[in-house]
């Protein structure tokens, strides 16, 4: 079973409304994109994996990470929220220090790890800045750095580039391709953008509403994917399949 994630018969219900309906899938050392229209329950699936669906929400089914029920190990699941979520009163360094909190790391080692990560993510020199002083792309990289500093065993990305536009989105995809995939942990991303799904995913799970796997699409293109890969006919065939899956 390895260190992968196994979701079996996951069902989430908000009162009378069914948000996730008997959803089953596995994720190994790969990037899986949950693809579906807005409001189909994609983010609810991520919250269920993170264990934060909230009070009054009925959750059934099993979610195992490395064969163990999820939630047994603090910090095992890293998540970058839509937006992203970066408390406005914390500097980049403080955010990273909060992100690097599991275990009993000596402070010198923790500092070294933070400095190394900031350097790898192109954030050196921004340590004392607050989120409002960062560009959208920089915020995204900070959120990714914070989520990865605890060395989680799986990373969840909730619509990772929705709030970016134009070149910033392309830069963010490049960054995730080169710097986040290289960490070598399973990644589950949520998206309703075919271009993003095809750029990031090894597999795409097309969800119906409420969330259940309607179909699965394997994306055969090698990584790292650049803008050039989108020029081929095979790419547009898959793009067409994804866009038509909404109708």
């Amino acid at each position, binding site marked *: 079973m390895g260190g992968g994630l196994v979701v079996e018969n996951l069902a989430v219900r908000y009162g009378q409304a069914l948000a996730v309906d008997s959803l089953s899938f596995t994720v190994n050392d790969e990037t899986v994109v949950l693809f579906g229209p807005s409001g189909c329950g994609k983010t609810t699936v991520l*919250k269920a994996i*993170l*264990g*934060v669906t*909230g009070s009054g929400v009925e959750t059934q089914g099993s979610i195992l990470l490395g064969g163990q029920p999820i939630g047994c190990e*603090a*910090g095992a*699941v*890293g*998540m970058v*929220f839509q*937006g992203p*979520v970066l*408390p*406005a*009163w*914390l500097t980049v360094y*403080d955010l990273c220090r*909060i*992100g690097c*909190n*599991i275990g009993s790391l000596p402070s010198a080692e923790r500092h070294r790890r933070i400095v190394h990560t900031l350097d790898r993510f192109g954030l050196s020199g921004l340590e004392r800045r*607050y989120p*409002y002083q960062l560009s959208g792309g920089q915020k995204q990289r900070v959120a990714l750095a*914070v*989520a990865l500093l*605890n060395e989680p065993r799986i990373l*969840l990305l909730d619509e990772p580039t929705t709030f970016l536009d134009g070149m910033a989105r392309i830069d963010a995809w490049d960054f995730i391709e080169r710097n986040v995939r290289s960490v070598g942990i399973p990644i589950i991303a949520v998206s309703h953008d075919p271009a993003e799904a095809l750029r990031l995913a090894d597999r795409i799970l097309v969800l119906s509403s409420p969330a259940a796997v309607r179909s699965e699409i394997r994306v055969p293109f090698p990584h790292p994917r650049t803008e050039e890969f989108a020029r081929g006919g095979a790419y547009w065939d898959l793009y067409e399949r994804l866009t038509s899956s909404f109708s």
Partner: protein
Amino acid sequence: MGLAAQVSVTPLVFALAWSLVSRAYNLPSVAELAGAIAEMVRSGTYLHDILVSSIRGLAGFFVGFGLGSLTGMLTGRYVRFFLAVGGLLLFLRWTPVLALLPITVRVAGIGEGPKIFLIAWACYFISWTYTHVAVAGLNPAYVWWSDSLGLSVIARFWKVYAPAVAPTLVGGARVALAVAMIVVVAAEFSGTFQEGFFRDGLGYRISRAVETNRNDINVSCIITLGLLGIALDFLLVQFVKRGLRRLTGIDFYRVEG
């Protein structure tokens, strides 16, 4: 306008405006007000009145703010607790505190307890309301984010939740403090004992000035209350800024945007 400019310009603007108003309505001039303050300082009542009113106001404020914030955290965090007590609290919030003054004096007399009770009562509901709104409105994404990072209860409270709700709480504290200084005057109108440290107060001095037709002392005490309010508000903000920085390690008052 910077603080230094405000401090230097405001008294001049006030003195000019007061000169015009006092002539039009036959009120004490600026010189007469200064003379009244000098008279009170010489007699030893001025600083004593300021001290006594400050102590009363702050005591009631701290009791009311502490209990109100605690209740607000509970009602904001636990919906069932809010459903259980929210109706009663909302009803009591709308009972005018000044209307309680006569019955409080009738039940408990004119000692310090009833005065502090009235001030605390007024501050309690302001603090409860602000804290409840802040806690109930806490962005759930901060809770999920803290969960995803495996933050301890202490870390998430001091680093995430407290700073998130602090600006609203501080706003509530400043309003509550202002109301405390209003209620302290009303409470002192109800009378004070003629002996002991807590014998007077600025409110009592105003009521005595009205009885003896000393408008100069009356207006001087009102101006003093305004200046005292500014000073206490300044000290409160400094206390909160430094206290939060010490407790959380975060200088979030510097955060803009």
